[in-house]
């Protein structure tokens, strides 16, 4: 499968503090790739850098071979990278429908086919289509954040901690939907603290620690790796 997203030797900083150190990873077409690691390891920073919210100081990021790391966030969004960001960041004071329309902003008008697809994946959003997004439950807001990202017809979907703060039942539901989205043809880069769940749905994974990629392999290999089992799966 051809490479969709290629992150090459990327270093990024917040002021003088280095958050990413020569991060290299790639996502092939049709894959679910997960990036796991603990709090503050650099997972969200990696996604922010890919999306263009943070400019890498060195290295490059390519989408289908085209360099995107020199472009501002709104241009990157238009090129086919959509992100469901950490903390959901939905527009609380707008309706569910307005949020979904904003997801399709790069395309002008929202595509009715995409809208139908999102509302079929998340029937709760259909029920609440005219409701103010901020009045919904955490799980519904997470669905909206993912649905909003899908409205952009992304070639690569970046998901930042979709399971954060959700009940175990909802977590299962969200991961099932991620699999379904992928089965429908969207390439996914999934950032998670819930390593077990993430590796369960992913084809491959990367482990990040203090800004360094320390381990990579297929999901199966990582699930069997001692370090991963101790550090992220809570085994003694």
């Amino acid at each position: 499968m051809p490479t969709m997203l290629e992150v090459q030797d990327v270093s990024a900083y917040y002021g003088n503090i280095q958050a990413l150190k020569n991060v290299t990873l790639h996502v092939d077409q049709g894959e679910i790739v997960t990036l796991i690691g603990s709090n503050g390891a650099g997972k969200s920073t990696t996604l922010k850098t890919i999306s263009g919210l943070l400019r890498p100081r060195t290295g490059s990021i390519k989408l289908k071979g085209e360099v995107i790391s020199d472009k501002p966030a709104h241009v990157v969004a238009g090129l086919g990278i959509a992100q469901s960001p950490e903390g959901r960041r939905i527009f609380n004071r707008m309706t569910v429908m307005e949020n979904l329309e904003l997801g399709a902003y790069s395309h002008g008008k929202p595509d009715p086919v995409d809208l139908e697809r999102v509302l079929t994946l998340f029937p709760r959003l259909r029920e609440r289509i005219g409701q103010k997004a901020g009045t919904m439950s955490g799980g519904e807001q997470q669905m909206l954040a993912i649905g909003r990202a899908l409205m952009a017809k992304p070639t690569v979907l970046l998901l930042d901690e979709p399971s954060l703060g959700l009940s175990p039942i909802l977590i299962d539901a969200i991961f099932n939907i991620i699999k379904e989205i992928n089965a429908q043809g969207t390439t996914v880069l999934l950032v998670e603290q819930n390593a077990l769940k993430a590796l369960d749905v992913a084809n491959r994974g990367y482990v990040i620690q203090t800004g360094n990629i320390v381990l990579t392999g297929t999901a199966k290999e990582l699930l069997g790796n001692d370090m991963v089992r101790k550090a992220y799966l809570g085994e003694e």
Partner: protein
Amino acid sequence: MNVTVTLFLQYLIIGLATGSLIALIALGYTLVYGIIELINFAHGEVFMMGAFFAATLIALTGITNESGGVAIVGILLVALVGSMIFSAALNFGIDRVGYQRLRNAPRLAALIAAIGFSFILQNIGIYWRGSNPFRPPEIIPAEYRSMNILTEWLGLDTAVRFRLLDLFVIGVTIPLLVGLTWFVYKTRVGTAMRATAQDREAASLMGININWTIGVAFLLGGALAGAAGMVALYYNDNARFQMGFRYGLFAFTAAVLGGIGNLTGAVVGGLLIGLAWSFSDGFVKLFIPAWGPQWTTSLVFGLLILVLVFRPSGLLGEETPDKV
């Protein structure tokens, strides 16, 4: 009708006309604050520049109050649109040259830059038209200037005066207010503005060009200020380089009173301040002999202090937006 009622209605009309002018200016404060949380202290001067531009433009055309109806109405419209474009471009330019470079600086930096732009524009005003008040070119024939619509057009027998000028103010203001609301709530760019106001980073993830969208807020605010400037020029029958100071502060108060960042709030606040201004200037004297226009400014800023103490989010302002 007894005298008190007549006077009440009269000050009500004046208050509503003045209030709609203030509302137009207040919207500019609230649009910009809503999107980048900056009090654009140069906004009053953008309004003043709109008035100056209209005066110069009309004088250049050489049209007078004897030029005939079509020419007069035409030049009023051209001057209105011209001032709106001029002030919009000016406000947009200030953002591009100044504030945009300070977007990630501490907020105080942009605030001080705004005060700096305010001084610069006042001095340009002095250079342009001198430091004394001046009257606009006389293009409205005398018989229309003070014509009372209520008696002449509606045939009412009343001492209350609703002048053609009052109608002009309200006739310009209301379509602009409706148009702005439509733009912000119904268009794609308006939706982008609201998204940017709520969460700038998330908006850019949607593909919204943040700097351009903020620029649109400056364009819109400037256009409204330009319209207000042109209208105020004829409504007050004079203009001066300092005119933006009082109107600007009153409009800022109106925006805070209504809830800064809230469009409806700015209009409600503007009307309330206009009414307070008008009633304090004349009506209150009927009941409190010592009261007079000299107290108006104290009253308005007293209101501002009361709002800031008891309801800092303003009459229609939302509580601090909920962040998950």
